[in-house]
């Protein structure tokens, strides 16, 4: 357990963020069944795991930081949030019961509630686990997101 973590994360570079929201849409798309952005939003009712924040000239895209000490993990009552040996914080949406504790404690606001029709669970960045490379980073047109080893 005390092994050295070897984790790659998505780091936002706010100097480069142009708030185009490609990261958001790309994220939603790749996490959809249809792999189509319009269907992902409109038929599958999905939401992005990355959030673009804008305030005047400052903008950045934000997603789960996979904290070294994840408060969401502390707070998860269902055991849906687990940290793997490299420090990656995984959220099992099937297991999640929607207690919103992670939403309440995440200092980055990176755990989001999904409350749509029958769906009640939290969701957050999974670093595009199956995909191998984070879609947001690939989609970013201005190099405002980089995929890099944990600092």
């Amino acid at each position, binding site marked *: 357990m005390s092994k050295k973590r070897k984790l790659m994360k998505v780091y936002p570079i706010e100097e480069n963020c142009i708030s185009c929201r490609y990261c958001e849409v790309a994220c939603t798309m790749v996490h959809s069944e249809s792999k189509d952005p319009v269907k992902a939003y409109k038929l599958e009712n999905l939401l992005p795991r990355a959030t673009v924040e804008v305030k005047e000239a400052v903008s950045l895209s934000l997603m789960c930081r996979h904290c070294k000490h994840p408060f969401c993990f502390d707070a998860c009552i269902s055991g849906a949030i687990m940290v793997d040996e490299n420090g990656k914080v995984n959220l099992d949406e099937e297991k999640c019961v929607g207690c919103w504790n992670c939403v*309440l404690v995440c200092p980055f606001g990176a755990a989001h509630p999904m409350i749509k029709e029958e769906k009640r669970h939290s969701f957050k960045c999974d670093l595009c686990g199956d995909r191998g490379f984070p879609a947001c980073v690939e989609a970013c047109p201005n190099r405002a997101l980089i995929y890099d080893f944990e600092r």
Partner: protein
Amino acid sequence: MRYVIVGNSAAAVGCITGIRKVDPDGEIVVISYEDRCYSKPMIADVLVDVPEEKLLYRDSSFFEKNGVETILGHKAVSINRKNKVVALDSNELVPYDKLLIATGGKPFVPPINGSDKKGVFTFTELHSAVSFKNYLKENGAEEVVVIGSGFIGLEVAYFLREIGIKVKVVELLDRVLARALDRRGSKIVENMMREKGVEFIFNDTIEEIMGDEKVSSVRLKSGSVLRADAVVVAIGVRPNTELAQTAGVEVNKGISVSDTMETSVPDIFAAGDCIECTDIVDGQKKPIPLFPLAFEQGFIAGLNMAGKKMEYLGGLVLNSLKFLPVPVLNAGVVEPVDDSCEVFVNDKFEKKGFYRKAIVRDGKLIGFIAIGEIDRTGILTNLIRQKIDVSNVKERLVELDFGLVDLPQWWREEKLKRDKTAYKDWRAV
């Protein structure tokens, strides 16, 4: 090194996690009179027949993987601080090098006549929830009275409606969740509960539980008598300090612990609902029996037990209502504590019945309520935790798009660029 943990819930799991961060090899023994590691906040789900494995917080593989020896079904009855052993109700003696007391809370049952009758339940443990459910079924219960409109009371009431049972909630105060929400929030929750069919009786309390062997009705202080096929007492929990006291550990409102979660007795640590901790907001020592805190305290205790010095950040009131269709969250204080407090409310989505409220004192956020739109409220929680100056953005605190861009640039630099997200990095600035 041999670690012994009494208790098997959030604090215990946190403690195991903490120990293993530092010490991969030391022996760990968990003692619990219960037979599994389940999630306490989820026990109300039993009422709606959620499969029991869904309630498991950690399954046996967790204990195996972490090399934890479990002594389940046996209660720890006393501690010998001199010999460093824990005595079980089986007369077994379990020696320890470091001990964690994580005995949790026990439900508070006020002295009411008839409270020893069959059909009167508390609702903090899985077995009591299960026996409540069974009792309802066996007795074909149709009406239940719930005493107390706290989180547990409301949740039980809500789920009882879900399975078609009439519910009346009796509350001594004039509104629901009076200690967790402001009046407006209480009203919203109350309305949602009423829509579900829950009835409320405020400003009243139960004088007597009536019935022969089993409860059949209750009599209120106001004099009215309500039919009650069962009664749930959900007034609150108190720290369970019995075991600790056998070791001569200092106990106030709960077990008294240091910043490193150590009790007054060397090598004995305590964490979870059984302790009193320092409230980040007001600096007062008090029991804050909340799941996330229990885990965190257990984790810190674990680190310290294994020899890595780490100070606890302190407790913070954090509540989330998970059973309502509309989420209700709050953290810290929900009403201004004095005249120096500024209150900000977002009414923009009032039409939907939602709102957000923030309370600021001395330029610092000390509490908030978010109903309906809860996304990203963790950022606010952290502002309370880190005591970050928000004077420049206080009006924005209740905006839905309040985010890290509203925080000082140095904060983003530290947390995003330099990735300072270890436990110690979250101290107040």
